[in-house]
């Protein structure tokens, strides 16, 4: 008898490593579309001001639409509590050691919510500009936030997330002068990785840019509904 034989062969697989997540995200997207939920995935570094901005946005948006939010953090319910001050429906996702949200976490957390009762769903991702880039959550758009205090070259340091984003928001714009934020350099960096990306400059303190964002979101949602015939 011959010694142990292995007849080596190569089999083509050609599958995305995150296939499971992507399939789940596709199902979620379909559910959102069928129930008329427009979904926005917010990503930024820790401290860029996502929660503060989102609380303000939800308060204003909540006057005209039914808005809800899911917020991901490694620990604590603090952000959910802050967001609840806006009056919106909010649920916290505690990820433990995981530095991003995955589609199955979204699916699980939505359990029990009637999606027909929601017009806009905001997903505040874990504060991190690297890991969230790889995971589709079934969102309609991805928004990347940078604050003026983070430095002008941040977009080129995190090209993957910027490249997959549909809108960039510069937060704490009221501090631009104080921190000598160089607008042109920032815009150049942004355009180096995502040419033509729309940008909004906002400040929760002065209210600048927030109504503009709402107008934009309403238009995006309307355009999406028209394109897909949902609702």
């Amino acid at each position: 008898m011959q010694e142990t034989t292995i007849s080596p062969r190569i089999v083509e697989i050609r599958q995305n490593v995150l296939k499971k997540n992507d399939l789940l995200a596709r199902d979620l997207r379909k559910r959102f579309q069928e129930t008329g939920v427009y979904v926005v995935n917010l990503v930024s570094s820790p401290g860029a001001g996502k929660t503060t901005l989102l609380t303000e946005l939800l308060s204003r948006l909540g006057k005209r639409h039914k808005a809800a939010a899911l917020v991901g953090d490694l620990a604590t319910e603090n952000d959910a509590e802050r967001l609840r001050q806006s009056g919106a429906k909010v649920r916290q996702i505690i990820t433990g050691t995981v530095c991003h949200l995955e589609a199955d976490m979204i699916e699980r957390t939505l359990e029990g919510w009637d999606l027909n009762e929601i017009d806009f769903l905001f997903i505040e991702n874990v504060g991190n500009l690297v890991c969230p880039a790889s995971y589709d959550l079934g969102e309609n758009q991805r928004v990347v936030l940078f604050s003026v205090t983070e430095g002008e070259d941040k977009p080129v340091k995190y090209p993957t997330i910027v490249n997959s984003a549909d809108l960039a928001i510069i937060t704490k714009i009221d501090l631009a002068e104080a921190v000598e934020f160089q607008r042109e350099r920032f815009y150049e960096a942004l355009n180096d990785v995502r040419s033509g990306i729309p940008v909004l400059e906002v400040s929760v303190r002065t209210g600048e840019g927030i109504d503009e964002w709402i107008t934009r979101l309403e238009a995006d949602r309307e355009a999406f509904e028209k394109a897909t015939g949902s609702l």
Partner: protein
Amino acid sequence: MHELSIAHSLVELAVEAAENSGIRRVQALYMKLGVLSGVVKEALEFSFDVVIEGTPLEGARLVIEDVPVKIFCPNCREARVLPEPFPMRCPLCGTKTGQVIEGREMELYALEGGEEDAGDDN
């Protein structure tokens, strides 16, 4: 670091693919990794070695092929490979573009292995 989660998904996918294609012992996994995938190759290799322990993939090699960024230049109306991931400009005419054709891959594209051993007739 999300490479550990990705390594888990990779192993899960490979085990399933091996079963489907009748490979009893996987010797190598071939993977394409885009420069814009957001995955650090070294971290993934490290995670892979940790994750395969005690699984049917134990002992398998991970072979990673880097995929550079390929963009579509709206001016030349051609696809072009970038020497560096950014700036995202056409290397020929300098036009800026955000249209990425390749470079985001995170794909298991082949498995190498065999039907182990004696009893098998081939």
